[in-house]
C-alpha cells in the first residue's frame, strides 16, 4: 500500500467536514475531501448576495412549478429562494423516501461548503445537564462524554469561528468565548426590562451567533445586509467556505474533489480497518476508489449513515460497525413551535441595518431538577424575532388611490414579536432511516427511507412552550398574542437539526461510536457529523458537532502517530 497519496479522507465539506479538513491538515496529514456537491467559489458564486427583489424571478415570489418539480422538500425552508437556489439539493435528481405516515423533511445542500452556507448561525454550548440527561431520566443511553471534557474544545472552536453574544453565567447555557453582542432594538430593551421584573426566572439575551461584530482572524465584521444564507463575500459569518477550507488549503495539505458521491466504504479481511472509499462522479458517472489511513465521515447525519448502511459485507452484515443494531435508529430533530405577539411600545423608535440575528430565551424549565408542575422531562428554548409591521401586513384592505397608497408607505403602528420554541426531542428507536434496495437512485445507490414522528414528551413540551409564551407575552406588555395550535408543530427535519442514527456510547452493544467518534468495530473510521448525537438538548447543535470533530481529529492523529490505528 505504498502508493497511498492521502493520509486521511474526509467525506463532506460542510460544518463538520470543513473542521476535519482544517484540524487534520494542520496536524500535517495529507487530506482528501470528497464532496458530492458542485464546486462553488467563495464570494464569486454568491450570485444572489445583495440582489434586490426586482432582480429575482417573479420579484422573489417562489417559482411554484419548478419548486414542485425539483425542490419539493428544500423549498419549504425560509432560507430557500432564487437568490440562492444554486446551493440546494435537487430533490428530483437526488431523492429519498419520505413516508406518508411518518414524514421527515431532509434539507440538503449540494455544493462545496454544504449547509455551512445555509445554516442559521446560532451557536450554543451544551451544559453539564444536557450531557447527563439520558443517564438521569433513563431515555436513550448515557453520554460517554461530560461537559468538562468538551469545554476546551468548545473554546478552541469558538476562538476560530468568532461568536458574538452576551455572557450570562447560566449553568444550563454555559457562556462561549464571546465577541461583542449585536445591538438590541428599543422594543427589545423594553421587553427585557419588563420580563426581568415580572418573571425573574426568564433570561432574555442577544442571540449567540457565528457572525462577527468586529474583525476576527482576517474576516470582516458583519455589514448587516440581512440574508446571510445567500452567501457572504466578506466571510462575516462562519462557513467552511469562508474559514475552515481556506485554513486547510493554507497548509498545502488539502485536496478537495467536488461532484463525488460516496457509494460505500471497503474494509480489510479482518473487518476492523477501512481500506478504501468508493465514489461515483456525478458529472461523468465514472466510479473510482481512494485509499487512506484514516477516514472521517462528515456527510451529514443521514448522509453518513446511508454510507455505513450501504457498506455492509459478510463481516458487517447489517451495515458497517452495526453489531449494536443502533445504526439508522434514534433519529432526532428539534420540534419548532411558533408563538406570535403584537406590541405598540417604542413605535417611534426604529433601526438601520438588517440584523441577521434575534434574541434568545434559554431553557428555564426543568433546570437543575424536575419542575413539580411539569408532565415532561427536558426543556426548550425560544428564539425571538422582532419585526416592524409595514405594507406587507396591511395591504389587504379596501380603498384606492392616493389615500390607499399613502397608507402603505410608512411603518405600521406596531411591532411583531415572535417566540419560536425549539423543543428537545427524545431518542426513540422507531424514528429511523434504512435503505430500500429496490429503489436505487440514478447512481444505483439504494435510497434512504425516513420514518419520524414526535413522541408524547415532545408534544407536552410544545404545549408548555405555548403556556409559558403566553405568560412572557403578558409580562412583556403585548396588546395581542396568539400561541400555536398543536397541529402547527413542525414536521421532523424542518428544524434542520437532524441528529442520531450512529450514536456514541461506552457500550459497543448499544452504540456505533465510542467517546472519540471512532467506530467501536473499525479502528480507523470516525463519524463526526450530527449522526453521533446520543441525545438532542434543545440548543442548536452545530457548535457541538464542530467541537467533537476537532477533538476526534486530535485523538485520531495521536492514535495514528502512536501506531494504534493499524496503518
Amino acid at each position, binding site marked *: 500500500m505504498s502508493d497511498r497519496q492521502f493520509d486521511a479522507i474526509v467525506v463532506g465539506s460542510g460544518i463538520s467536514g470543513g473542521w476535519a479538513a482544517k484540524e487534520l491538515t494542520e496536524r500535517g496529514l495529507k487530506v482528501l475531501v470528497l464532496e458530492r456537491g458542485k464546486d462553488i467559489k467563495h464570494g*464569486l458564486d*454568491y*450570485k444572489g*448576495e*445583495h*440582489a*434586490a*427583489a*426586482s*432582480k*429575482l424571478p*417573479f*420579484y*422573489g*415570489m*417562489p*417559482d*411554484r*412549478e419548478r*419548486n*414542485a418539480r425539483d425542490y419539493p422538500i428544500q*423549498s*419549504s425552508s*425560509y432560507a430557500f429562494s432564487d*437568490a440562492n437556489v444554486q446551493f440546494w439539493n435537487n430533490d428530483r435528481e437526488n431523492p429519498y423516501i419520505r413516508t406518508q405516515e411518518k414524514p421527515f423533511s431532509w434539507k440538503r445542500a449540494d455544493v462545496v461548503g454544504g449547509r455551512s452556507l445555509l445554516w442559521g448561525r446560532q451557536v450554543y454550548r451544551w451544559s453539564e445537564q444536557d450531557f447527563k440527561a439520558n443517564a438521569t431520566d433513563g431515555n436513550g443511553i448515557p453520554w460517554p462524554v461530560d461537559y468538562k471534557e468538551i469545554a476546551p474544545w468548545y473554546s478552541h472552536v469558538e476562538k476560530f469561528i468568532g461568536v458574538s453574544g452576551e455572557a450570562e453565567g447560566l449553568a444550563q447555557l454555559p457562556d462561549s468565548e464571546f465577541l461583542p453582542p*449585536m*445591538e438590541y432594538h*428599543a422594543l427589545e430593551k423594553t421587553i427585557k426590562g419588563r420580563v426581568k421584573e415580572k418573571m425573574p426566572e426568564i433570561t432574555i439575551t442577544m442571540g449567540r451567533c457565528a457572525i462577527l461584530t468586529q474583525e476576527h482572524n482576517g474576516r470582516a465584521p458583519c*455589514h*448587516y*445586509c*440581512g*440574508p446571510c444564507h445567500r452567501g457572504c*463575500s*466578506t466571510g462575516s459569518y462562519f462557513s467552511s467556505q469562508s474559514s475552515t477550507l481556506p485554513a486547510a488549503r493554507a497548509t498545502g495539505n488539502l485536496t478537495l474533489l467536488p461532484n463525488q458521491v460516496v457509494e460505500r466504504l471497503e474494509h480489510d479481511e479482518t473487518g476492523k480497518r477501512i481500506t478504501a472509499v468508493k465514489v461515483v462522479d456525478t458529472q461523468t458517472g465514472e466510479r473510482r476508489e481512494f485509499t487512506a489511513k484514516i477516514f472521517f465521515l462528515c456527510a451529514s447525519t443521514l448522509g453518513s449513515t446511508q454510507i455505513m448502511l450501504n457498506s455492509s459485507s459478510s463481516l458487517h452484515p447489517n451495515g458497517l460497525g452495526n453489531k449494536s443494531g443502533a445504526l439508522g435508529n434514534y433519529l432526532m430533530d428539534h420540534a419548532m413551535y411558533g408563538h406570535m405577539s403584537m406590541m405598540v411600545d417604542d413605535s*417611534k*423608535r*426604529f*433601526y*438601520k*441595518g*438588517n*440584523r441577521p440575528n434575534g434574541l434568545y430565551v434559554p431553557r428555564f424549565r426543568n433546570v437543575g431538577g424536575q419542575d413539580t408542575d411539569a408532565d415532561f422531562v427536558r426543556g426548550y428554548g425560544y428564539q425571538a424575532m422582532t419585526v*416592524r409591521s*409595514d*405594507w*406587507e401586513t396591511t*395591504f*389587504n384592505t*379596501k380603498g*384606492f*388611490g*392616493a389615500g*390607499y*397608497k*399613502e397608507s*402603505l*408607505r*410608512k*411603518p405600521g403602528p406596531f411591532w411583531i414579536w415572535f417566540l419560536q420554541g425549539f423543543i428537545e426531542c427524545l431518542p426513540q428507536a422507531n424514528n429511523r432511516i434504512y435503505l430500500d434496495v429496490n429503489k436505487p437512485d440514478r447512481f444505483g445507490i439504494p435510497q434512504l427511507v425516513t420514518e419520524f414522528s414526535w413522541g408524547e414528551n415532545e408534544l407536552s413540551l410544545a404545549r408548555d412552550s405555548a403556556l409559558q409564551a403566553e405568560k412572557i407575552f403578558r409580562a412583556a406588555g403585548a396588546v395581542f398574542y396568539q400561541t400555536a395550535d398543536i397541529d402547527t408543530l413542525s414536521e421532523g427535519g424542518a428544524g434542520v437539526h437532524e441528529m442520531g442514527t450512529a450514536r456514541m456510547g461506552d457500550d459497543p452493544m448499544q452504540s456505533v461510536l465510542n467517546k472519540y467518534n471512532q467506530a467501536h468495530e473499525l479502528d480507523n473510521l470516525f463519524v463526526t457529523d450530527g449522526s453521533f448525537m446520543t441525545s438532542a438538548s434543545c440548543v442548536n447543535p452545530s457548535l457541538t458537532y464542530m467541537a467533537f470533530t476537532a477533538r476526534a481529529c486530535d485523538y485520531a492523529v495521536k492514535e495514528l502517530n502512536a501506531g494504534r490505528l493499524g496503518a
Partner: protein
Amino acid sequence: MNRREFFQCAAALAAGSSMLPSSWAMTLEQQDFLAAQPDYIDRHPLNFFTQRQRAAVTAVAEQIIPATDTPGAVAARAPRFIELMVANWLNDTERAFFVDGLTDLQQRAGGDFAALAAAGQLLLLEQLEEEAGDAAWFQMGNVTRLWDDTAPFICQVKELTVLGFMLSDVGSSEFFRVNPMGSFEGDIPLTEDDSSYAVELPIRAMAGGEVL
C-alpha cells in the same frame, strides 16, 4: 480572474450600481453579475394580454396606486409585472379565473375599462370591492399566504399591483428607502416622514408557502 472577466468587472464598476447605497461589500464579480442582470420585468416579452386588456390592467393599477408626489404603479411598471405573473406564475386554473375577472370588468365598463373617465373607473372598482364584501382576503394575517385562489378578481389584481409596485426598483428606491448596509443600530428615532425600508424578499416567499 481572466482578462475578459477583468474588463467586464471594470465596465461594471464604471457603470456603477444604482440599486445599492454602497458597493464596498460586494465582490467585483457580484457587481458585474447584478449590473448585467436586468430586472425581472425586463427579462421577458409581454405577449399574454390583448392590447385592450393591457390598457385595462394599466388603468386599474394606476387607480390602485396613482402617481402622487412619488411615482405610481405605471411609472414602476407594475402592469408589466402583472401580465408576466398572470402569464407565467399563476397556474392554469388561477389564470383562467383572473382572465374571467378581467373580462367581467371589461364588460361592465362597456367593453373598454381604459376608455372610461377616471371617475367612472374608480366607481366601478369600488363597486367590485363592495361586492367582494368580507372575503377572507381582507382579513389580517394574510402576510404569509402565498396566493389566495378563493379571493375575488378585484383582490387579486390589487395584490399583484401592490407586489409589482412595492418590490419594483422604482417602488423600492423612490417610494420606500433602501435599508443602508454597514452597521446595525436598533434604537434610532422614526421621524414623521420616514418611509418603511424596501423589502428584499416578501415574507410570503420566506414563509415557505405551500408548493402547489
